[in-house]
């Protein structure tokens, strides 16, 4: 079997939220993170500032966890929403958390912002978090790692509980018009888990999960993978790349838009790397084995 390689996050092409981006929008923080009108305005301002081909939503990785009961510090214009304190102290407690109600709260506002941006003709990348990222808000990571070693069956159950919620979020995002649904779980990357545990996660969860996520791709929707996930799949022999020719050299984001409807899964680059150019006009579809 091939070895799992790591992908180094850089994402230094996107400026992130800053005074420069928000100037003139009349936004107040953290209020701007809470309402669909301001979420949409902020997303569009970021797109224009970064000269990206798409709008990104949301701006943090806490909406799913918050919708399951997580406690969030909404932050300010400099630092966005993040976890405040953990609500669970044992993995067993995670199984008792409520399912996500997509009709209320910040997650609903994010979906409404998506719909509004699509109606304005924008392409929208809905950034969906994987289980490790969601767990980071809910419980100290050491309980997760210990659980994986001592109680792997229980943790598999936890991953799938979260996985089912993530799939529901993806379905909702699709219904609200998101054309690009991005899946990332960098908190569960190779550099943190190590090769053995990273492989265990692919076998127990990621591969089967992505089989289900892939089924959501259609002529209007593509699923994007964080390259850390792509490499974990390639390294465990659970996926391969298939080269597809683009109409010409273009930015990765533009390529994803062009290939929507033709490819189901993308994952050769980080979507946050907005300036990354596919000079050779080759798009690499991720094909699950």
């Amino acid at each position, binding site marked *: 079997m091939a070895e799992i390689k790591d992908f180094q996050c850089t994402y*230094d092409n996107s400026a992130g939220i800053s005074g420069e981006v928000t100037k003139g929008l009349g936004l107040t923080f953290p209020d701007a993170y809470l309402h669909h009108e301001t979420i949409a305005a902020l997303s569009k301002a970021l797109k224009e500032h970064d000269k990206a081909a798409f709008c990104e939503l949301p701006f943090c990785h806490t909406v799913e966890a918050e919708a399951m009961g997580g406690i969030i510090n909404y932050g300010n214009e400099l*630092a966005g929403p993040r976890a405040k304190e953990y609500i669970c102290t044992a993995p067993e407690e995670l199984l008792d958390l409520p399912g996500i109600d997509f009709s209320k709260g910040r997650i609903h506002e994010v979906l409404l912002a998506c719909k509004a941006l699509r109606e304005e003709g924008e392409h929208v990348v809905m950034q969906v978090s994987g289980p490790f990222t969601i767990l*980071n808000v809910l419980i100290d990571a050491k309980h997760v*790692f210990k659980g994986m*070693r001592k109680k792997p069956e229980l943790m598999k159950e936890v991953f799938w509980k979260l996985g089912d919620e993530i799939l529901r979020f993806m379905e909702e995002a699709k219904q609200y018009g998101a054309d690009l649904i991005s899946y990332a779980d960098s908190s569960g990357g190779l550099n*943190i888990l*190590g*090769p053995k545990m990273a492989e265990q996660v692919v076998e127990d969860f990621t591969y089967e999960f992505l089989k289900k996520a892939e089924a959501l791709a259609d002529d209007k929707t593509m699923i994007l993978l964080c390259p850390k996930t792509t490499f974990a799949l390639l390294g465990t022999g659970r996926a391969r790349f298939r080269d597809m020719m683009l109409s010409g050299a273009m930015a990765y984001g533009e390529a994803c838009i062009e290939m929507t409807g033709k490819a189901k899964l993308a994952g050769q680059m980080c979507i946050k790397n907005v300036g990354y150019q596919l000079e050779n006009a080759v798009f690499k579809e991720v094909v699950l084995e």
Partner: protein
Amino acid sequence: MSSKEELLKRLSDGVVEMEEDDVAEAAQEYLDAGYLAFDGIMEGLVDGMNRASELYEAEEYFVTDVLLCSDAMYAGLDILRPHLPEVSGDDKVTGVIGVVEGDTHDIGKNLVKIMLETAGFNMIDLGRDVPLARFVETAKEENAAFVCLSTLMTTTMGGMETVIRLLDEAGIRDKVKVMIGGGPISQKYADKIGADGYSQNAVEAVKLAKRLLNI
């Protein structure tokens, strides 16, 4: 009954093998047999943690492994530490550590703290998402020799430079070394903001601290 050497080995092996309950049991047996708590900590628990660091450096162990080893070490420490003779902590060098405001990723920070504690430093852990002024206040209150700042996010990196400025404004910059680390951090960034050092991982952080403090 087991000999002292056998119990020390059980403590050390238990840490390396991440067996929290075994370590706690061995620590209790060790105390019941009347052996010195100090030796149990240094030659048992710390020895095990040092072996875990070597495995980490050799890329046989990974972050998750070392965190679990440290849990086993702390389980033993909880039992042995109350039996140490009363000594002042004056001889230990104190460091303040935390993840800068705006960021909650603390796995790397926890690992650095564990390694520095194992190497004999007295570490004051401010946790994650720490208001920048708290680093300075704590360094002052605790008479710290160094401050370790961590972040995984590009959006919060700037906080590190602010801490350095605040240390300067508080008039203690020349007494406190500043070490930085985390995903997007580099030596170049450390040079740019005037930090005393950057380390790429937890093992390097210990070497850096010792070098900066001439230990």
